[in-house]
């Protein structure tokens, strides 16, 4: 299960792309170039990266309102994503979707989802397709601690067990759903224990550690691909920023906020990989430079891009009406 150098570089590139993308989103949002609101994934990079690392374009994920990281980890291009988030022509969804509705079917990215608990039932269906077609591929539903209490999520767990579909429920537990702590909102002892009681194996890993998430997913994939039905993986994460960009987070104490920042998945990966001399710090830095340049260029290009043609307002409602 040791990753080779290319794999490590790929993981680093993905995590950094998410980091750079979200930092840029934060900045663009402050500049007013991103309409609406933005929920960024800062602090959770290792979770999405680790979960998607061994997935192919033929495996599918359903995502959440906090979906940028999932998109990037699943292979969506940052150029199209920035265009989309800024509501521009050429965006991944033609500017019609926005931050909470990025999807890229060719990459197996079935959509961010602005309805909390919206994705798990859909992912059950994707997994059903995989099962019926005997592809060996899987579907993953990302949900948060908050979303874990939504009826749709809970019944999707039972449905997945009953239909024995190759699906992984990933619970990214960042401790908060909006302003309310998971300590309060989740009555169960833990998300993974509750999931296990639905009749599937469940594990909980340090979501700030790419290697832990990746190892957890390996086990999950093994179980799921063997036709044993679904699996649940909780990744315990830190949410660096507030619920949305601009949330002052007074409901979190300053100590807690400071502590969250210390569990930085990007720094932890860098330290671990360089200390173990798996990759040289120069290699890591070179990738960082390249990634940041690409992200910045994508953002700048998106800023300058045109809005969608007004004629598109009424297209794409139906394949044919």
């Amino acid at each position, binding site marked *: 299960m040791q990753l080779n150098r290319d794999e490590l570089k790929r993981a680093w590139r993905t995590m950094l792309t998410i980091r750079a993308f979200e930092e840029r989103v934060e900045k663009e949002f402050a500049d007013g170039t991103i309409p609406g609101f933005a929920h960024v994934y800062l602090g959770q990079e290792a979770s999405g990266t680790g979960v998607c690392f061994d997935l192919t374009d033929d495996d599918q994920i359903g995502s959440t309102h906090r979906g940028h990281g999932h998109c990037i980890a699943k292979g969506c291009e940052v150029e199209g994503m920035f265009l989309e988030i800024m509501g521009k022509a050429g965006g991944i969804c033609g500017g019609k979707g926005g931050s909470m509705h990025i999807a*890229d079917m060719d990459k197996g990215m079935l959509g961010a989802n602005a309805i909390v608990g919206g994705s798990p*039932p859909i992912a059950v*269906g994707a997994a059903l397709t995989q099962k019926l077609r005997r592809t060996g591929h899987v579907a993953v539903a990302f949900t948060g601690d908050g979303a874990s209490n939504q009826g749709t999520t809970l019944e999707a767990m039972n*449905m997945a067990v009953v239909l024995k579909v190759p699906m992984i429920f990933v619970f990214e537990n960042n401790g908060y759903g909006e302003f309310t702590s998971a300590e309060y909102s989740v009555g169960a002892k833990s998300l993974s224990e509750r999931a296990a009681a639905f009749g599937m194996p469940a594990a909980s890993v340090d979501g700030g550690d790419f290697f832990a998430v990746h190892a957890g997913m390996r086990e999950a994939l093994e179980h799921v691909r063997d036709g044993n039905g679904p699996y649940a993986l909780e990744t315990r994460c830190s949410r660096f920023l507030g619920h949305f960009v601009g949330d002052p987070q007074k409901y979190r104490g300053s100590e807690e906020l400071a502590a969250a920042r210390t569990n930085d998945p990007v720094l932890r990966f860098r330290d671990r990989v360089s200390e173990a001399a798996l990759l040289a710090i120069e290699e890591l830095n070179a990738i960082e430079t390249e990634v940041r340049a690409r992200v910045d260029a994508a953002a700048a290009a998106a800023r300058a891009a045109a809005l969608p043609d007004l004629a598109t307002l009424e297209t794409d409602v139906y394949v044919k009406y």
Partner: protein
Amino acid sequence: MPVISYRKAINQALEQEMARDARVILMGIDVGGGAGGSGDVGSVGGVMGVTKGLYPKFGSDRVIDTPISESAIIGAAAGAAVTGMRPVAELMFVDFIGVCFDQIYNQAAKFRYMFGGKARTPLVIRTMGGAGMRAGAQHSQTLHPILTMVPGLKVVMPSSPYDAKGLLTRAIRDDDPVVFLESKSLYDVKGEVPEEAYEIPFGEANVLRDGRDATIVAFGAMVPRAVAAADLLAKEGVKVTVLDPRTTSPLDEEAILDSLDETGRLVVVDESPPRCSLAADIAALAVSQAFDALKAPVGLVTCPHTPVPFAPNLEDAYVPSVARIVEAVKKTL
């Protein structure tokens, strides 16, 4: 031509399309007929027997019994559709839409638009509606207005065995999400239905009676009543056109407007409470686009603004009757 029931016509469309296309699967509560039981699984085929015989024929991979979890049923069907299957999900009674509506209008219906045209969601939701079974307030609604208003959905209301088969065949072959609203009071109605598969296109009204004195527009289970009313009126020398748009979305506006050009008088029969109803929708079409043709107030024959009552006499008074339709037409003359 064989004479079969509305129920059987639906069953036949399902069977033929499943045989034709391996991507077509059924899922829902008891559509197979009792998974996990110690007896003869597949002996039932849905609570109304509509899917009977399909489980024995196609097996548990294609006829999937589910837990009672409608959000997961519809959501999974949507997810399967968007990844390449062509699921027909059963929402047993349309009244249950409240526990899974999000997966219909916010998810399946919006995928394509939100994703800039990238998604294709060939999903059919079969469900049944309507009063008359003495089933009470939570099992007797129609609710087609809240479906018709959803951009991205198509809504079908078959009123005869022939239409049921042709429209369902079309729905299964359609690439957009379709809600197929069966009228439970029609399941035992029989009519001529060709053995072989055929499609009835969406958005094309059926003209059941042709007359120049007035136009009646009716949907689903109200169509036979509208026809009965027209026949009664004909005996009194009043000749009315009866239009069944067959799909409420898309709606054959042209057929309605053309008929109004001829008759100038409109009655809409809608088995639903009056507010924001399909009756109101058609009336609005008329007064916004056929105003000059209109010669009289539009007659709206709907249910009252109340839940569906249980007591048989109250329920009978609740649903638009032939007598009320006749009266409404006369009022326009």
